[in-house]
């Protein structure tokens, strides 16, 4: 019984393997590759753009900090009441600003350290 079934299946297999495996057009692979390359180019441009936007956020943050630093630099110390009222609680406020900036702008890790340094420098100024 099993033998008969196997013979039957072999016969069908042999017959079906004579059927045509169809071929697409000659330039099929080229057509696909053109589409694929266009897609991957688009994707890499998008990634670059996102990176650039992140860099711009970083620059804006640095610029802002520099502005704050320079503003205080040009204000004479004797007029600065803040200096007399120095409170260590300021540190936690600065750290909060630091983490909010990081989370909102998804700043890359390698920039985080320099941003922290800048913040600490401005803290040192106070």
């Amino acid at each position, binding site marked *: 019984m099993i033998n008969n079934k196997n013979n*039957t*299946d072999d*016969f*069908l*297999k042999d*017959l*079906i*393997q*004579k*059927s*045509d*495996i*169809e*071929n*697409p*057009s000659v330039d*099929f*692979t080229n*057509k*696909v*590759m053109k*589409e*694929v*390359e266009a*897609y*991957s180019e688009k994707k890499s441009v998008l990634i670059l753009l996102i990176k650039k936007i992140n860099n711009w956020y970083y620059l804006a943050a640095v610029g802002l900090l520099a502005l704050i630093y320079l503003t205080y630099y040009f204000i004479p110390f004797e007029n600065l009441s803040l200096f007399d009222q120095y409170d260590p609680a300021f540190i936690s406020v600065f750290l909060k600003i630091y983490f909010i900036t990081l989370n909102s702008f998804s700043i890359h890790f390698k920039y985080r350290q320099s941003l922290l340094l800048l913040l600490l420098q401005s803290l040192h100024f106070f």
Partner: protein
Amino acid sequence: MKYQSDSFYIDKILEGDVSAYSMIVDRHKDMVFTVALRIVRNREDAEEIAQDTFVKVYQSLKSFKKESKFSTWLYRIVYNTAISKTRKRQLETTDMEYEIIENYTLDNIKEDVNRLEYDEQKNLINKVIEKLSPEESTLINLFYLKEYSTEEISKIMNLSKANVKVKLHRIRKRLYKEVQQIIEYDYKKLYK
């Protein structure tokens, strides 16, 4: 050139070598096109489906988990794309026009087929496959041409293993009937 597995090229593509994808396309294009053509029965549509399939596969290559064979995943996508296109156009499958011929044994069929020339056998089986429904022709393509297991076919066609076996059994019976009828009506008449 040394034969490399699909996963070798997939790793290269994921590392950023887009051109490695052409090796994958070249390797599978004929079968992908054949599966699509057997379902939609129109060369232009089949080529479009095959092209869409390869682009779709490239776009979601990162999500391919190497739990199953790459080709299983690829054929599943082409099958689903072609079937959904066919459903949209509501293609009608050809019903059997011939009457069943009684008193015809399996050995008779084999004997008759073996009497035919190679090209005649090839024409005969192409005609028979044309008569099958898209699902049936995909099933026999995968089972007899690609020699996939019922488990792999069940993954590609989203059927249970038991269902694949039942369908294969029915298709075998139908194939014999179709072969027998074509021989009887087309070839025997010629030789009479």
